[in-house]
């Protein structure tokens, strides 16, 4: 662990339930494999960082007015899949960074006190992302 860790940046643009799962699983997996990870929450993704909103997104497909999501959640519970809240705390515990897009906050009228400030590392705009993405071996847009 003497060398500089490889870095991954993930933009979480979607607020969909399943896409948030993908983003947090990849984020946690990358931290576990020894990478540094920054997740940039923007647009509908940032909505999920509002208090009590993390698992409130729709399924990106087959939502079926909530029935699809209910079914998936039931199957996830049976398979003992960790909750989004659990994955987010794991991500923070493993040293991952959560960044909130301040432009989204402005256009959507979201205040800092509306957000999960306990997990957010910093508030920023595109410049911070580009700087980090340039240093990253992988960058994803979800």
């Amino acid at each position, binding site marked *: 662990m003497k060398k500089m860790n490889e870095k991954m940046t993930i933009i979480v643009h979607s607020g969909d339930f399943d896409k948030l799962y993908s983003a947090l699983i990849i984020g*946690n997996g990358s931290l576990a494999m020894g990478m540094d990870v920054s997740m940039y929450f923007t647009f509908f993704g940032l909505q999920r960082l509002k208090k009590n909103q993390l698992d409130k997104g729709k399924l990106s497909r087959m939502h079926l007015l909530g029935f699809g999501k209910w079914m998936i959640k039931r199957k996830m519970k049976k398979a003992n899949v960790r909750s989004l809240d659990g994955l987010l705390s794991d991500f923070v*515990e*493993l040293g991952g960074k959560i960044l909130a897009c301040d432009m989204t906050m402005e256009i959507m009228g979201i205040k800092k006190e509306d957000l999960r400030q306990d997990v957010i590392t910093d508030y920023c705009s595109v410049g911070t992302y580009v700087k980090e993405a340039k240093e990253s071996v992988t960058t994803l847009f979800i």
Partner: protein
Amino acid sequence: MTTDSNNTIKVDCLGETCPIPLVETRKAIRKASPGDIIEVTGDHGSSMKEIPMAVEALGLLLLAVEEKDNHWIIRIKIPEK
């Protein structure tokens, strides 16, 4: 996560699925000191292959991967300085 009398840190991931065995292993590694041994037990198939990948990426020592009837045990050592 528990530590036994031989100072082996035990991580029980039986019944856990992706990405929890990897994540819990990483948490244990972060808390461990040089020379410590970590023993992870689980039954999630791909984690048995992926935890050794993480061990390699982190520059740690993979002591053993034992496959039993319906679970596996992976032993990892944090190198001394």
